[in-house]
């Protein structure tokens, strides 16, 4: 009986000391910025690429003297690519780590999970690459540094009709993914308005491995191309299985395809000649972009993708807004973020509009030999 009591007491002391030690860590000479990202899970490259970009930005800010005379400390939490995990880690960032601003995420469904919490706690949040319009509609503390899906849908509708010269298109939508259903809805609307025709619509759930049933159904409607607004993990499998049922039409999609894992393995041949829209092209000769690529390569020994650029811009914009506000109070940072005009980012000039979105052009890339080749830029 006595030993049991001892164990209980020891455990509670341990637990309390852990709780207090983490509370006491808050130092006065740093500004804490939180980040939630999918560093593991099926969309891991989204998180890793943008995390690398954000870290690069923090390093630069700190080496040039920091913000308001203080260094920036980045607190990163992995949400494993799950919306419910996101809510847990964002709560932790705000309540335990006491961050004053939050950056995240690439995937819209996870940003949508985090935004209400940031809004409630009056912590400004910048999403680097969530394109679903509903993300920033959640509240006036939620911003983004990328374009939104109605625009991306217009870009791909124009591209399909004018450059790919296809009129009969089938849709394959990830029904469990807010990004995918949102982009598909917008595409359906604009593509039909511009004179195209949707001959078939099929759905899948992210994480599915078998797409042959849906693809076979699409095959017998004879589309000239298939629009797949999904994430790279599923798109690779879809392309492989599409070729396996003997179909050779091109696939095209949105920025969810952007990952060096997209063309891994058999998907390299299956995706040859397919297109997707995204935020920037690394082939762009613009010195800002090439300079960033060089810095990124030197530090990480790998190639950046669009999310590295956007992560960098999101962090830079956050630091800039804190500087302009001259304060770490959420309310003041929010007001400054909303006033952002012609902020010089590596992904182009960022002006935040009334809906707290950035207005930017999009690029279309073509997959050739497993590499992403620049095809065209479409301005808003």
């Amino acid at each position: 009986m006595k030993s049991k009591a001892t164990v209980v007491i020891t455990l509670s002391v341990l637990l309390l000391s852990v709780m207090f030690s983490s509370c006491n860590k808050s130092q006065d000479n740093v500004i804490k910025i939180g980040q939630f990202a999918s560093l593991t899970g099926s969309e891991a490259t989204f998180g890793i690429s943008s995390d690398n970009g954000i870290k690069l930005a923090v390093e630069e800010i700190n080496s040039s003297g920091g913000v308001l005379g203080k260094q920036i400390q980045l607190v990163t939490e992995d949400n494993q690519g799950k919306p419910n995990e996101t809510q847990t880690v964002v709560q932790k960032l705000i309540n335990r780590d006491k961050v004053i601003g939050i950056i995240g995420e690439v995937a819209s469904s996870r940003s949508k999970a985090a935004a209400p919490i940031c809004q409630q706690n009056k912590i400004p949040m910048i999403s680097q690459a969530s394109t679903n319009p509903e993300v920033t509609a959640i509240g006036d503390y939620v911003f983004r540094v990328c374009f939104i899906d109605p625009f991306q849908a217009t870009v791909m509708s124009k591209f399909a009709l004018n450059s790919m010269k296809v009129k009969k298109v089938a849709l394959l939508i990830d029904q469990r993914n807010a990004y995918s259903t949102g982009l598909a809805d917008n595409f359906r609307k604009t593509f039909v308005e511009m004179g195209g025709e949707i001959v078939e619509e099929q759905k899948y759930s992210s994480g599915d491995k078998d797409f042959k049933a849906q693809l076979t159904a699409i095959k017998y409607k004879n589309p000239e191309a298939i629009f797949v607004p999904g994430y790279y993990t599923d798109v690779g499998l879809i392309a492989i299985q599409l070729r396996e049922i003997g179909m050779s039409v091109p696939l095209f999609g949105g920025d969810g395809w952007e990952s060096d894992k997209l063309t891994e393995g058999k998907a390299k041949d299956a995706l040859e000649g397919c297109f997707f829209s995204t935020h920037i092209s690394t082939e762009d000769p613009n010195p800002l972009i090439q300079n960033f690529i060089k810095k990124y390569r030197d530090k990480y020994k790998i190639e950046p993708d669009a999310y590295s650029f956007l992560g960098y811009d999101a962090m830079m914009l956050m630091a800039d807004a804190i500087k302009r506000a001259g304060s770490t109070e959420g309310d003041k940072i929010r007001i400054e973020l909303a006033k952002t005009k012609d902020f010089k980012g590596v992904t182009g000039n960022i002006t935040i509009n009334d809906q707290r979105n950035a207005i930017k052009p999009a690029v279309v890339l073509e997959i050739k030999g497993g590499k992403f080749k620049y095809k065209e830029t479409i301005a808003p």
Partner: protein
Amino acid sequence: MIEFIQQFINGLSLGSIYALIALGYTMIYGILRFINFAHGDVFMIGAFSGYYLAFLFSFSTFTGGASVAMAIVILLGSMVVCSILGFTLEKLAYKPLRNSPKLTILITAIGVSLFLEYGGQLVFGADPKSFPTLLENKELFNVGGAAVFSNSVVVIIVSLVLMILLRIIVMNTKMGTAMRAVSFNHNVASLMGININRVISFTFILGSSLAAAAGILFGLNYPKVDPLIGIIYGLKAFVAAVLGGIGNILGAALGGLILGLVETFVSGYLSSTYRDAIAFGILIIILLFRPTGLLGKKEIEKV
């Protein structure tokens, strides 16, 4: 009609994978009267063994170098790996609990399952891996647009061969006779001089190697593997085993094929939104009319 044929082939190859996993569930249930919830994760380990074995055998490129002999070696190698895994799991996790209440061993199985899933994430990494091309996927024939590719046929044939082998082992060998005897009654079987521990170990080895084969066939057809694929495929295979009548080997095979076909037809002709709802709805209806599953026999509980 051609679309129907193509969907039928899609369904058969998906169903074959369910069936192979379901066989492991049903055999272990038949012998020990418990659901080995870790079985789906043994399937996952099978797929990953194939992935790493392929690299071990200098399969450095993802394409090219594919040969039938190599594929068979990798298939057998991963079956061996999972046999050892199944054997060890039974010895370490389940054997010490053999005389405990059924619930204890069931919870242990869930624990083992979680251990394999999250241990797998730690060891293999959580991001999906591209499964190497073990066999070149050639178009076998094309009738009016219904293309039949070699991989779907390989899946169906390999599953069929393994199931026939299993049938022979269970029906025509001494060990198989012992397995059937143990499934009737542990005590009486052991009184007849059957070494129960050996039979149970053998059952785990057999079931786990079939799961490994399913893992390789899965990688062949859907070349993306991650440490959590065992969850959903294990669940579906469990449903297939119950559908066919758990404890019945032929039933598990039949249940797997039915589930694969139903899922494919629902996705292809209706909408994949209702795929799982309809597949599980059918399970409920069948269990309402035949509570022991399609081929299950009624058991009288002796008190």
